[in-house]
């Protein structure tokens, strides 16, 4: 009985990103050894998270309250909405501290080959939010991939009639990047989008 529970725990842990069967076994053993200080609190935290965490009905972010902390924050600039593909992208921008407006999580990108069309993305909700009088700018922070930019063009088309300013993130040299190590696509984008010194 005990062995099968450990096996089940290892199997579930091995499904997490970054963990294979061997590392899952090590993690399981560490949890069991630290039963009171780690395993039980972790189990309780996971249970609470499973009950409480929901997508925000306004922006699509994940939080234990609806609307999420970002949407509730009165200090945020309500004039600007930043559109991202996934919640992970929102968290990355938040980590950088570079943006203090509101977000909208699309839930993916258009993909011709995966058959993901506009109806699978939360574009309708974005249009509703953008139509609000206080919104003056929408930033399309989508990936510099064929699917990401196809989606950006599509969203921009849909937003155009609303008369708000539509901007996109710049492409080019990463901070700390050396020209010799840059991929050709980034380098050519950096040259195309160069600016006065």
């Amino acid at each position, binding site marked *: 009985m005990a062995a099968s529970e450990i096996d089940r725990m290892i199997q579930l842990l091995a499904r997490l990103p970054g963990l294979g069967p061997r590392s899952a076994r090590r993690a399981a053993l560490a949890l069991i050894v630290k039963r009171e200080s780690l395993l039980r609190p972790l189990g309780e935290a996971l249970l609470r998270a499973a009950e409480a965490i929901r997508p925000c009905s306004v922006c699509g972010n994940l939080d234990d309250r609806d609307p999420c902390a970002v949407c509730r924050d009165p200090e945020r600039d309500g004039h600007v909405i930043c559109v991202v593909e996934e919640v992970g992208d929102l968290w990355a921008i938040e980590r950088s501290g570079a943006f203090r407006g509101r977000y909208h999580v699309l839930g993916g990108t258009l993909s011709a080959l995966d058959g993901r069309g506009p109806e699978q993305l939360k574009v309708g909700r974005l249009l509703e939010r953008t139509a609000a009088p206080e919104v003056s700018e929408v930033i399309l922070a989508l990936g510099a991939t064929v699917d990401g*930019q196809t989606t950006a063009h599509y969203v921009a088309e849909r937003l155009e009639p609303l008369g708000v300013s539509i901007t996109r993130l710049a492409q080019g040299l990463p901070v700390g990047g050396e020209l010799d190590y840059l991929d050709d*696509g980034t380098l050519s984008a950096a040259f195309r989008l160069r600016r006065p010194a």
Partner: protein
Amino acid sequence: MLEWSDEAIVLEARPHGESGAVVSLLTERHGRHAGFVRGGQGRQMRPVLQPGNAVSARWSARLAEHIGNLTLELTGAHAATVMDDRARLAALASAAALCERALPERAPHPATYHGVLALIAALAGDATSGAHWREVYVQWELLLLRDLGYGLDLARCAAGGANDQLAYVSPRTGRAVSLAAGEPYAERLLPLPGFLVGRGGGGDAEVAQGLQITEYFLAKNVFEPQNRDLPSARKRLTQILGLGTA
């Protein structure tokens, strides 16, 4: 150990496992060919694996029926050159999707491969060299149809009319019909744009007619027999060019 090296264009990359990707390529000598790329979801490989990029590919497998491993080196970052232009990006995505869906696997189609390269050159061209990329795109779809065995005969009138006044294409046979011979049936025939028969320089209306012809025959001969719809990227291209509804 089976092994080959070839020049190729990336058509698609699907995540496989935690860090790898199954990548579909259009190669010059080995046709559409898939393989597993280690680290295909990693920071270094993701820019390489964008549809439309040109790569030097090396494929190896123990048995021919295995999917095999691919090692890729970027030789042309074409996707990045068209990303800012929604119509050109849609054309590139459409060409990649059509190749991925229409071409059989592991059957050489060098004409289609070189056609894609010519299309990419037109898409990446400036106001002069790339001015007629939409006409080049229509020509490329005609070439794809021909390469798949469904070529249209646009050289002479199927009804015995004058060959210098070809104005229609028969949706039944895929053959051109002259203005005089086709007039009584004009509603049932597809209009033939002049640039496809060496008359005129194209333009919006002619590109629309050309796309209508290729769309009709791609759907009828290639996708309907597979019980599939045209790729959404192809529909989006028509929509972006303002030539129809997606």
